[in-house]
Structure formats: structure tokens, C-alpha cells
């Protein structure tokens, strides 16, 4: 190995390591390892003193490799890599050895074994560091433009937020008008404000905003490229149109379940869903006066084996509409049958109590004794089994409203294939991480907001719209993306273009190309996430991963096998 000069820094971490591992003897042992020019122990390597020592020793001994044996790389690796960089050493010529969480803390009653293990782990680290190569991180440009798919409340919120920050936004809507589900809603809980009063101004603002190019009606056809340089093909006014953007926000929303096969829906008049009811309420309210009774049945088509999830806000919708009907016609018997009532939070609990005070009757029913609608063409009575009193009730009822869940949009599968993003339960889009990255996909540059991810009400759609816009703005504001240099690379001479790695890559980041007559695999560094799955499928090792080549791991195995 061309003049490798290794510095080893072994940490006491106070007593966390030093209390179990005989650190000085490990330092002594490290001095004898191949190409180790300098080795020292520090009380706290991550302290300012420890970091300063690393910088000084790199300069003093002209070190070109650094090994730190301390806690876990998952927390401190960036800190030490930055320190090496400050000292003028390429940050990838660094290896971290975990002798705390993986050694001292779990072998507290076996000090000798722990020390022996620490020595071997350091030996493995020093063996690997010899083969590390300096790396440059790939930098790509990010177009300051975003494509928002879906012109519902979430999509418009994201579009307006990004447009107001000065980014060019392409808002793509499949229907003939913006607004999505909210357009077909009468009033909005919990304030009972008229839905149009909320959605119309947002639509106007979206149309008026000079940074928003509206593509409506337009169908998403294909998406190529990667963060910073997406080509989004849409079918608009009879022709394909390719839009070049840096980021994409998926806000395709969801749709109400039409519960065919439940309670004669579709076969009997006046058996409607909440959304159908919203439509009727929007037209006129006269028909409510001659209502004798209305029964709403909640959880229809959900929290059942085929569809296990709770759609979160359909209870509140039922309470809202029940209350409106009750207010309009105090004589009508308004009943809400539920299997549990989701009225979380201050406003919703308050809303629920007001509906009860207005005389809406809330009864619990059970799936094994469901309510029966009595009537020929349309409901006349309803037979309910009340669980509390374990008795049967017959109530007048000339309308049954089925409260059904939101289900995923029918073309989620197609969109997910185009964007190469996964689908989770119920075919909703699956976010990168429930808590840590809720509005992003694992694929960089693609974000998600609204009911496309799972059923959310308007307030949550708006907040997720803002969140997705904020996340999308990060790469677009800097205009640059840096990719950590742990991606794969191909040795063209060794590659026979068999395409195995192309199939193995979860991110479609590899393609077979022709370079002056020789066919070979090529890795797109902007798309490669550095998982290394391709490297393990290549039989000849023609493709390797920076920082994790076969050579670097094999010498660790040999060090370990030889050492014991």
C-alpha cells in the first residue's frame, strides 16, 4: 500500500470505556499494527481537546488515515469526519471502531475479554482503513421548479407555499376544476362554515398566482430522472408535454368508499353515503322538514378484516351532518349508530357534546347484530339492537346515511410505479418514516401530502401541504444536492453487462450503457442511495461500493480469523 500513515485515537469516554477496557494496553497493541505511525488514548475524543489533538497529530505526523475507537459511528462519525476534513485530510480516509456500545457496555463483568475484543476490533478497523480511498462527494444541480400532482386542498397549499417562495410550480390536476373532495362538501366541521367559503378563495389564489402554471385537465403519464432533474410527462390538450422540475409533491388525495353490498346501498332509495348527503344539503334544505327520522350507520366498510384501518374523521362528519339535520328539523329522530366514536381533541369533543345537547341520539351497535332497514323501495323503519340495554328498538327512519371511509385513489398503483415509490397498507402511499420523515418518500426529491398518504381532514391536509412544500424547498433553495460518497461504481473492464445489478437495485439507479463499443453497467450517482445490494449480486465484483469494497471487508475477516 502506497505509504499509508495511520493514526489511532482510542477513547476512555470517562469510565464508560476506560472502566472496562484497559485502554492503554489497547493503544500499545495498536502501535504494533501495520502502518500505524501514531496511537494515543484520550479521556474524551469527542471533546474540543480530543478533536484538537486529532488535528494536531494529523499535521505533526503527516497522517493520511485516521481510526477512532470510541462510541457509535451513528452519532459521532460526522463529527470526527469533519475534524479530519478541517485538518486537510479527505473525510473518507476515516474508520470508526465501536468499543463502547458494542464492547465495554455489554461486557462489564468480563474486562479481559472486553479488552481482547477491543484490540481485535481496532485491528479490524486498522486493516480496513489501509484500503480506504479519498472520495469526492457528487454534487448535482437542483432545478428551482416543482411539480405538484393533485389540485386538492393539500396540493394547492403546497403549490401556493412554494410559489410564494418564488419557485416555479406546475400544478397538475386530472379533473376539470381544482378543489378535490372539499368541492363536494356542504359545511366544514368544527365551525360549520360553508365549504365553498373556504375552498373558493384558495382556488382563486392558485389560479391568480403568477408562479403557478396550471395543467388542467392533465393526466400524469411518466416520470423519469432523479432529484434536481425530473422529466414529468403529462397528457394535456391532446398532446404529451414534458415538464422539467427539481422536486415532485404527490397530493393525489383519496376517494370515498361506495359501500356496494352493505345495507342495500345502491339497491334502495334514500340509502346514501355521507358525501351523497353533503351533495343533497348543498342544493336545498326543504326536504328535511318532512323527515320523520334519519339513522346514520358509522364504520361501514372499515375496521373489518378486508379493510382494517379507521378513517379517522368520518365520525366527526357524521356528527356534523346529524346536528345540521336535527337543527333544521327538531322533530326528526336523528340517530347515529357507531362502533366507537372518534372525537379526539378539544373542538371535536365540544362538537360531540353540542350535537347530543341538540338531541342527536348516539347508540352503540355491534357487527354481529347489525341494524336492519325495514322498507320496500325506501327505508321506513330501522330495527336496532342497543348493546347497553341489550334490547331491540324500532325507530321511524325514512333515510339511512352510511358513513364510509376514504380509500386510496384508484390510480395510486400506476403513479407509484412511475415515481418508483412504495405503497403501504390499503394501497396508500408509504412515507419514508412515520415519525422522522412523514412527508417524504425514501426516493429523494419526491414528497407526499394529504389523503394520498392516509385519510386526513382539511386541517391536517393543509399542515401536511405546508410541510411537504417546506421539505421540497430545501434542495431547491440551495440549488445543489450533495450525495454522500458511499455510492457504487463500476470497473468497466471487468463488467460484462449481464444486467444482474440493474435488476437488483431497489432504486433503478443502474443502467447498461455503451462506452465506445464496450457495453457495461453505469451507476447514476444522484439516484444511488449507497445500499450496496447490487455489489452483492455481482459475481465478478465488477461493481463495488465506495467505503465498502470486497477488499476492505475481506481484510477485516482475515484479521479477525488470523487474530484469534
Amino acid at each position: 500500500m502506497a505509504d499509508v500513515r495511520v493514526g489511532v485515537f482510542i477513547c476512555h469516554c470517562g469510565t464508560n470505556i476506560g472502566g472496562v477496557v484497559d485502554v492503554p494496553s489497547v493503544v500499545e497493541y495498536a502501535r504494533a499494527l501495520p502502518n500505524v505511525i501514531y496511537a494515543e488514548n484520550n479521556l474524551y475524543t469527542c471533546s474540543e481537546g480530543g478533536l484538537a489533538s486529532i488535528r494536531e497529530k494529523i499535521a505533526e505526523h503527516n497522517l493520511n488515515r485516521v481510526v477512532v475507537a470510541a462510541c457509535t459511528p451513528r452519532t459521532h462519525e460526522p463529527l470526527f469526519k469533519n475534524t479530519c476534513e478541517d485538518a486537510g485530510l479527505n473525510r473518507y480516509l476515516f474508520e470508526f471502531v465501536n468499543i463502547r456500545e458494542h464492547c465495554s457496555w455489554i461486557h462489564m463483568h468480563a474486562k479481559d475479554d472486553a479488552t481482547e475484543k477491543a484490540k481485535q476490533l481496532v485491528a479490524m478497523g486498522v486493516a480496513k482503513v489501509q484500503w480506504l480511498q479519498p472520495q469526492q462527494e457528487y454534487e448535482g444541480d437542483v432545478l428551482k421548479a416543482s411539480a405538484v400532482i393533485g389540485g386538492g386542498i393539500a396540493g394547492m397549499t403546497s403549490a401556493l407555499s412554494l410559489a410564494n417562495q418564488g419557485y416555479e410550480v406546475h400544478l397538475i390536476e386530472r379533473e376539470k376544476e381544482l378543489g378535490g373532495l372539499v368541492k363536494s362538501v356542504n359545511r366544514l366541521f368544527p365551525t360549520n362554515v360553508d365549504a365553498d367559503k373556504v375552498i373558493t378563495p384558495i382556488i382563486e389564489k392558485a389560479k391568480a398566482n403568477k408562479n403557478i402554471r396550471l395543467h388542467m385537465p392533465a393526466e400524469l403519464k411518466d416520470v423519469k430522472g432523479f432529484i434536481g432533474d425530473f422529466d414529468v410527462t403529462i397528457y394535456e390538450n391532446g398532446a404529451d408535454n414534458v415538464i422539467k422540475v427539481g422536486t415532485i409533491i404527490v397530493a393525489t388525495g383519496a376517494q370515498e368508499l361506495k359501500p356496494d353490498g352493505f345495507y342495500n346501498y345502491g339497491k334502495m332509495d334514500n340509502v346514501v353515503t355521507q358525501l351523497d348527503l353533503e351533495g343533497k344539503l348543498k342544493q336545498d334544505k326543504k326536504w328535511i322538514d318532512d323527515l320523520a327520522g334519519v339513522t346514520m350507520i358509522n364504520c361501514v366498510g372499515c375496521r373489518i378484516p378486508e379493510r382494517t384501518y379507521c378513517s379517522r374523521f368520518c365520525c366527526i362528519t357524521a356528527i356534523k351532518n346529524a346536528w345540521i339535520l336535527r337543527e333544521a328539523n327538531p322533530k326528526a329522530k336523528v340517530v347515529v349508530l357507531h362502533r366507537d366514536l372518534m372525537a379526539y381533541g378539544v373542538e371535536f369533543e365540544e362538537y360531540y357534546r353540542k350535537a347530543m345537547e341538540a338531541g342527536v341520539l348516539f347508540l352503540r351497535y355491534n357487527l354481529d347484530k347489525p341494524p336492519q332497514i325495514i322498507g320496500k323501495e325506501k327505508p321506513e323503519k330501522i330495527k336496532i339492537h342497543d348493546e347497553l340495554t341489550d334490547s331491540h328498538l324500532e325507530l321511524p327512519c325514512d333515510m339511512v346515511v352510511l358513513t364510509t371511509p376514504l380509500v386510496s385513489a384508484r390510480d395510486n398503483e400506476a403513479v407509484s410505479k412511475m415515481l418508483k415509490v412504495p405503497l403501504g397498507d390499503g394501497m396508500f402511499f408509504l412515507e419514508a418514516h412515520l415519525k422522522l420523515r412523514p412527508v417524504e418518500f425514501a426516493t429523494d426529491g419526491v414528497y407526499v401530502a394529504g389523503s394520498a398518504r392516509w385519510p386526513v381532514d382539511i386541517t391536517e391536509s393543509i399542515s401536511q401541504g405546508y410541510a411537504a412544500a417546506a421539505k421540497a424547498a430545501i434542495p431547491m433553495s440551495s440549488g445543489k444536492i450533495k450525495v454522500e460518497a458511499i455510492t457504487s461504481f463500476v470497473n468497466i473492464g471487468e463488467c460484462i453487462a449481464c444486467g444482474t445489478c440493474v435488476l437488483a437495485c431497489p432504486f433503478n439507479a443502474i443502467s447498461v450503457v455503451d462506452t465506445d463499443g464496450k457495453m457495461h453497467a453505469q451507476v447514476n450517482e444522484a439516484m444511488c442511495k449507497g445500499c450496496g445490494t447490487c455489489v452483492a449480486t455481482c459475481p465478478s465484483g465488477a461493481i463495488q461500493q465506495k467505503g465498502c469494497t470486497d477488499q476492505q471487508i475481506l481484510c477485516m475477516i482475515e484479521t479477525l480469523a488470523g487474530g484469534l
Partner: protein
Amino acid sequence: MIDNGFEPKILAFCCNWCSYAGADLAGVSRLQMPPNLRVIRVMCSGRVSVEWVIKAFSSGMDGVMVLGCHIGDCHYIDGNHRTKKRFVLLGKLLGALGIEPDRLCLDWVSASEGQKFQDVVTKFTSRVKELGPNPIVAA
């Protein structure tokens, strides 16, 4: 733990996002374990080459563990799907060649399963102790 004086050499490949983090959690929770284990960190269990494990057994490792994220949790969507297929197959190939498949452990440990990491490592170490030294390298 059967104490027949034989201390097995055990190597584990852990993925940065799940099993390595689970190991860290076991450390933070001071869950004590037998000291036979040495961990090599990879970004994804999908990076663990079957050839590495073959090399490990060939060079005298008594037991090798491949620990990744649970199926469906992989940070790289489905890198660990390949891991599962490869190492279920390797277990069979080892058996065909006469190496006890129990010397190879394929399991899934999430970042929050420190306890499971301790269990898996402790059980595997005693199982390898039972099986005795690596038969390839012995005599």
C-alpha cells in the same frame, strides 16, 4: 451456557439502520452478552455478499450472523428481500456440503429491539458452542 472450554469465534454483519442500531440500544441499556461476537457494519444487509460468509467459514469463523431490518422496514425499500433469499439458500448449500446450517444465523432486529439483539446473540453463541469448533478448519 455449556462450558466445555471452547470459545467460538462469531462474526456478525449488521445493517447501519436497524440491527447495528439495535446493537447500540442493547449497549445503551447495558444488556450483557457473551464477548465472542465481532460486528462488521454495512449500510444494508443487502450488501452482505454470500461470498464474504463463505470466506469467513473458510477462514475459521465458528458462526456467522447476518442481521438486517425486518422485511418491509428496510431503509432501502427491499434491499433485505435479497438478503433473505440469499442466506436461506446459503444455509441449504452449507448443509449440502456438510457444514451445519445452524452455524449461519439470518435474523431481523429493528433499531428499537435491543432486547432481541441480546437474545439472538446469546442464543446463537451457545448454539455454536454446542456445535463445537468449525469442522472445516479443524483436523
